């Protein structure tokens, strides 16, 4: 036994990276996967190749979660985001390793990115119960009626993540969308999907209710038009590639 464990020939146990939809880890209904490559092109693991149906499932989950999440007090949302920072702090090392292995950054660069991610979660946690005091107003209308403007969450947001950095933009987009009560579908980078899928495990232990954050991996080009044409997606953020961006705008324009 001891000799087997210490033997250099011992095989590592590889992980199957799944999609994160409605708080559950599921395989793509397509049964397809794509390889997650290291920066040097080595196959690290496989990730699911989400399809139109997976995207639809994610929208259904995000829509179902929206009502409850938006109805929570801003204070509670704030505390839950802060809780996410607490969880990330404790699993910092795991994300650092994932960034190094996946994107080939140096240890110090990876540490910096994870640290920034934690602090950014704390920063945005603080915005939940503050932005309405800055952007809301009571309007001094001339006639005798009471008039005020307030911000409301838009609903279900689909966010396409850039390739690099592989973690920080994902956390920024997630935090900014959900802090006000939106729910989000994050579509991970095709090139470096592992860090964000690993981050899903932190989300699922962080008090963020299932469905508030959903994470898909796969081919961006396959998903972008579905996102653009889905009638129950209220906003789309950050299509990182120009080609996709045009496609997305063309599709979305049909819905306006």
């Amino acid at each position, binding site marked *: 036994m001891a000799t087997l464990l210490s033997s250099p020939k011992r095989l590592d146990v590889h992980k199957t990276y799944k999609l994160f939809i409605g708080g559950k880890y599921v395989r793509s209904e397509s049964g397809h996967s794509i390889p997650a490559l290291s920066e040097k092109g080595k196959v690290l693991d496989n990730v699911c190749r989400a399809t139109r149906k997976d995207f639809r499932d994610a929208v259904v989950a995000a829509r179902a979660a929206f009502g409850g999440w938006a109805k929570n007090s801003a204070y509670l949302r704030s*505390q839950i985001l802060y809780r996410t920072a607490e969880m990330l702090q404790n699993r910092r090392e795991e994300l650092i390793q994932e960034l190094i292995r996946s994107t080939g950054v140096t240890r110090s660069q990876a540490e910096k990115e994870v640290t920034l991610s934690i*602090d950014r979660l*704390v920063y945005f946690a*603080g*915005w939940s*119960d*503050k932005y309405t*005091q*800055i952007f809301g107003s009571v309007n001094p209308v001339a006639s005798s009626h*009471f008039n005020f403007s307030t911000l409301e969450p838009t609903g279900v947001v689909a966010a396409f993540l850039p390739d690099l950095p592989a973690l920080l933009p994902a956390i920024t987009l997630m935090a900014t969308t959900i802090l006000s009560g939106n729910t989000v579908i994050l579509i991970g980078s095709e090139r470096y999907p592992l860090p964000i899928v690993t981050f899903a495990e932190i989300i699922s232990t962080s008090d963020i209710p299932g469905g508030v954050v959903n994470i898909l991996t796969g081919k961006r080009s396959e998903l972008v038009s579905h996102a653009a044409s889905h009638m129950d997606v209220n906003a789309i953020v950050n299509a990182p590639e120009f080609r996709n961006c045009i496609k997305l705008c063309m599709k979305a324009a049909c819905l306006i």
Partner: protein
Amino acid sequence: MKNSRLSKKSSNGSHALSTTIVTNGHLTHRDAKPVPANQRQLKFGNKWSYAPAPESNSFVQLQKRYDLFINGKFVTPTSKKYFDSINPANENKLAEIAAANAHDVNQAVTAARRAYEKVWSKISPRERAKYLYRIARIIQEKSRELAIMETMDGGKTIKESRDVDIPLVAAHFFYYAGWADKLNYAFPGRTPRSIGVVGQIIPWNFPLLMAAWKLAPALACGNTVVLKPAETTSITAMHLAQILQEAELPDGVVNIVTGAGETGRAVVEHSDINKLAFTGSTEVGKLIAKQVAGTKKKLTLELGGKAAHIIFEDAPIDQAIEGIVGGIYFNQGHVCCAGSRLLVQEGVYSTVIRKLRDRIATLRVGDPLDKNTDIGAINSKPQLEKIRSLVQSGVEEGAKLEQSSCPLPRRGYFYPPTFLTDVTASHRIAREEVFGPVLSVMTFRTPEEAIERANNTPYGLSAGVWTDKGSKIFKIVNKMRAGVVWANTYNKFDPTSPFGGYKESGFGREGGLQGLLPYLTLD
């Protein structure tokens, strides 16, 4: 059990009803002529007894003696003098509290100045935020312990310290933590800067909550603090000091000096304090204002109140009764914004009085650690005497006394829920702040009269309006000279909402974005 006792009472009772059905604690009458509303009386009376449900305080470790918290350490006062902290519910001594003199205060200010210059003003706002978040979290983790201590030291009910005070304490730290690195967004186009060393003097009615109201925004804005708690309620402040240590807040950023008036005076008079924040009586507030006049110190005051609570004829009366009760009997009436002047529109006056009389008969006065207690102990003996003498003056001036006949514990300082009718605006009981469970009831006919009566006070901290008509709410609220006006609710507090007074109730706001202003200079 309750039901069977009630049924028995009903069948043996002398009233003429043929059947009394008890459902879920409520009485309904069948085969009987409907009793006119104004003659109906409570059937359960004092038979509605509760088994004791005391909150265990066995895991709370109070120290025998509490020292001063200066420069991150607990130090003995130079005078070596200590005074007793009493549990007002049983008059037992809880602990000894250090009495700080001018020398100790000077040490605290020196430590705060050093911490300001060397650490706190240089640390990044993001890190400042994280310290405050840490403090909020530790408070949440220790919330039950703090609630029990607050109840033992101050006499407020465990129901309140557990469900209101301590959760709000954590919420205030949590809220202002978030502002620390967002000050530029709060005041666009300006450059917010910290002020320096802040002296803060807080009252005994919400000991830890007032500490949080003061500390959280001051620290978030980058100031360092010398805090003086009230002499009857210092214990939780000293446990907060331990929490600050646990959170690794840099030494000297917060210093806590305990003591009575002399200590407070030393804080007010210290020349190296840049800003003073005081919450307490209007009388002391005026003295502080005089003292500070002509110096460079910035000042905010949150003083007394004599809030008008207006009930219109179209109000939801049953909810309004709950609002009235919460408005004046919450925290034994030791609330600066308590709705202590009830203004009732004439058409509903008799209904309101009847329902109020019935409702206060159900309030349980007694052991504050009992989870069923509605009204706990009066904070101190002098305060109890003050309440008694003001009620006496009301009776002497011609008001009619209505008091719950509930039994009061033999030991400790207790006062039953009380209201006075036939009060006129010139009575002392209608003009002076009682700071106890005592309500003065007056009437009005028109909204204009209500507004005039409501504003007829030197104070202007808060007010309440009850009406189902939305337009009336806005009309009344806009004419009310009070810093906070509640509509169809009362005594609601939130860290996001600014709180503060008009006129002799002080100036400056605590809470919300506005609560940052007293602790910043804007270039």
